[in-house]
């Protein structure tokens, strides 16, 4: 409609006097809103109960809050330490680590942190546990004794609280203020006590000594001259607890994982590790995940291939038989499809056993000697047989629905034009059934690479998939970050394949049970 016609005839109006276009838009908008309102509850439900939890899980693959949150003082200082000099960090880092570790030990966080770092450097967990027991008994109490002897008021928690509330004191004694704040918060949260009623712990006095020794000039009475004090090296205290603290290894690990985000889990998931000069591939004998990914892919491909091989003739016969017999035979495909996955897996577990029906049969007809029964289960053979059986209907059904649309007259036409049986099939029929093969293959492959239950039950150790490793890290080793990284890689693979599937057949065209 051009402006000229509108001007001459005026806008077309609806019954209520509004312009028709406006009225139409309003109706359309109302319809859209109604449609969205109908969808909204479900969309909200799926977002909250499914999409966001998965996003949250995926985020765990890069999240590393526990290190900087548990050791804030240490991680801030470690960045300046150069591990390549081969020297342990300076006394200041040990002092910061002492404060962090005492606080973490009081909150019982040091073992969790130890297990976290143990994923990257085995042995750290026991180191943290052992030193966690010792750290409360370090010889730093000599500072407490000497400072209290100089200023008796330092025994009084209320006095401390008063000083620590004054900005000039805090500015003059930054380490003390920081240590005191950490201590006061810990006392309130862990012991449910008012810090005012308690004398601060030794590490606060140690911090006060360090500030004073560094030349701080706080207002009296805190301006103690510490020149003649007996001192103790915190580094030696750690070394006495365990000489490993003088190695660079554990400090390197802490330094590498100091940030709130890490690519460490992903590197682990592809068999690489962090080192001083960037990521590097793990030695041959430590590579497990790439092997597992490759095995998952390889076995899924074998299963997909077997499904095509077995499914194609069956789909063909179903599509070309008269409807009545085809429907009858279809039951043979649909019944396994509808039968519980666990029923089918247990059937295979029972059939494939060494004392199971199949081996009995083979021995009975003399194919296999009684002493050399076949090992069909707890290896990749078992996984492949059982999963081919379980996934075969997912190949047959899409193939069938595509083949159903190919007119049989095409084959006859090809033959009447002189093609032999094979040429007619390969040049005329097969290209038309290819979309079905593609759809079925992608579907089977996607389902196969994410499988967990069947490999877990019949796969033994040689026939397990990446999913089984993810489950292991979630429920047994509790290395959730690594599980999330492996899961993210698997999910990306599946999504790429689904994108291909969507391009090929469309997600909402998935046929369910024929």
């Amino acid at each position, binding site marked *: 409609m051009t402006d000229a016609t509108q001007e001459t005839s005026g806008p077309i109006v609806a019954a209520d006097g509004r312009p028709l276009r406006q009225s139409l838009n309003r109706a359309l908008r109302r319809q859209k809103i109604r*449609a969205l309102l109908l969808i909204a509850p479900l969309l909200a439900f799926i977002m909250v109960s499914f999409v966001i939890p998965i996003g949250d899980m995926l985020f765990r693959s890069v999240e590393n809050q526990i290190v900087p949150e548990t050791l804030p003082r240490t991680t801030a200082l470690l960045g300046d330490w150069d591990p390549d000099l081969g020297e342990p960090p300076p006394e200041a880092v040990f002092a910061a680590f002492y404060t962090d570790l005492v606080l973490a030990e009081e909150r019982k966080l040091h073992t969790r942190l130890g297990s976290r770092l143990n994923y990257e450097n085995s042995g750290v967990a026991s180191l943290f546990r052992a030193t966690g027991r010792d750290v409360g008994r370090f010889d730093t109490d000599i500072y407490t004794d000497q400072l209290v002897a100089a200023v008796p008021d330092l025994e009084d928690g209320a006095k401390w609280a008063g000083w620590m509330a004054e900005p000039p004191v805090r500015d003059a004694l930054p380490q003390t203020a920081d240590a005191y704040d950490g201590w006061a918060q810990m006392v309130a949260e862990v012991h449910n006590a008012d810090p005012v009623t308690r004398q601060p712990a030794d590490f606060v006095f140690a911090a006060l000594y360090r500030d004073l020794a560094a030349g701080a000039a706080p207002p009296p009475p805190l301006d103690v001259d510490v020149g003649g004090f007996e001192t103790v090296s915190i580094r030696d205290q750690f070394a006495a607890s365990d000489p490993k603290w003088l190695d660079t290894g554990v400090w390197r690990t802490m330094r590498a994982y100091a940030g709130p985000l890490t690519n460490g889990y992903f590197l682990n998931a592809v068999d690489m590790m962090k080192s001083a000069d960037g990521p590097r591939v793990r030695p041959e004998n430590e590579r497990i995940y790439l092997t597992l990914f490759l095995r998952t892919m390889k076995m899924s491909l074998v299963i997909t291939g077997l499904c095509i091989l077995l499914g194609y003739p069956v789909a063909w016969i179903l599509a070309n038989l008269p409807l009545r017999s085809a429907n009858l035979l279809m039951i043979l495909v649909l019944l396994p499809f509808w039968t519980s996955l666990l029923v089918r897996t247990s059937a295979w577990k029972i059939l494939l*056993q060494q004392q199971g029906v199949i081996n009995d049969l083979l021995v009975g007809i003399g194919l296999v000697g009684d002493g050399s029964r076949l090992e069909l289960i707890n290896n990749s053979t078992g996984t492949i047989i059982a999963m081919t059986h379980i996934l075969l209907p997912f190949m047959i059904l899409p193939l069938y629905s595509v083949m159903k649309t190919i007119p049989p007259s095409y084959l006859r036409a090809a033959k009447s034009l002189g093609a032999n049986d094979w040429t007619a099939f390969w040049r005329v029929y097969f290209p038309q059934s290819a979309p079905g093969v593609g759809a079925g293959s992608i579907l089977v492959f996607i389902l196969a690479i994410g499988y967990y239950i069947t490999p877990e039950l019949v796969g033994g150790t040689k026939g397990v998939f990446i999913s089984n490793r993810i489950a292991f890290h979630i429920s047994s080793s509790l290395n959730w970050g690594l599980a999330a990284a492996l899961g993210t890689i698997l999910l990306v693979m599946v999504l790429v394949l689904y994108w291909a599937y969507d391009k090929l057949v469309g*997600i909402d065209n998935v046929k369910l049970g024929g």
Partner: protein
Amino acid sequence: MSGIPIYASAGQRVWYYSFRVICGLVFFFLIAPVLVIIPLSFNAQDFFTFTPEMLRLDPAGYSLKHYQDFFSNSDWQLAMANSLKIAPLATMLSVGLGTLAAIGLSQSHVPFRRAIMAILISPMIVPLIISATGMFFFYTKLGLWMEDTLGVSKSFTGYFKVVLAHAALGIPFVIITVTATLTGFDQSLTRAAASMGAGPVRTFFRVQMPLILPGVISGALFAFITSFDEVVVVLFVGSAAQKTLPWQMFIGLREQISPTILAVATLLVVVSIMLLTTLEILRRRSERLRGLSPG
């Protein structure tokens, strides 16, 4: 393929019959494992293979003792009761929300239809182990929050978590079957109902619902079987008090396999035969209806 033509060569005849034999073998491969456990479940011995008595069809070789064990064992009974509680509730939730959303999605002008569809179908696409892991973290937090803040009992939160998780898994199936049914639904019927003065609710229950009911029922059956068969998510989200039949079977298969599993498996095969029959009746009915009123 209506028989072999009389002019077929010897080679073609051989191929024709060997092809049928191959197909027969594949059909046997598909169905035999499911069927073989049925006679095995009546074994009088605690073996997983046919005993000589069974092969001789001697009645002494057969017994119902594995079924007796299933019905008297408290573990299995708890598992069955849980399955029968969780699956219907999850089904109701996914059918209720799913049907509404499917009706919304099948309107002619839905903004972001593809994106919404992709999100709603995602529980079917994402590998179960990943869904289970994500839900594990989320529902643990949700459960703790419910127990601490709302003061709900531990048992209730346990079931609540599993039902919600299973409902999410069942939703794609409801969406797919119901939207498929709705594409054949004549929208002018709702307009006709509206023009005769029926409100949206009345139109829905009196006009639209009866016509799309077969789709809704098959969606419900899919959602039911999804929950009833589901084991990965319940292993991660549920606790031992919510163990379902598949959970109990999974534990049984992984640790020490007892022949009771055969009896349970047989009962589950019977359940799937019943489901399959229901679906087949529904399909026939809708085919007949479509045959009567084409277009």
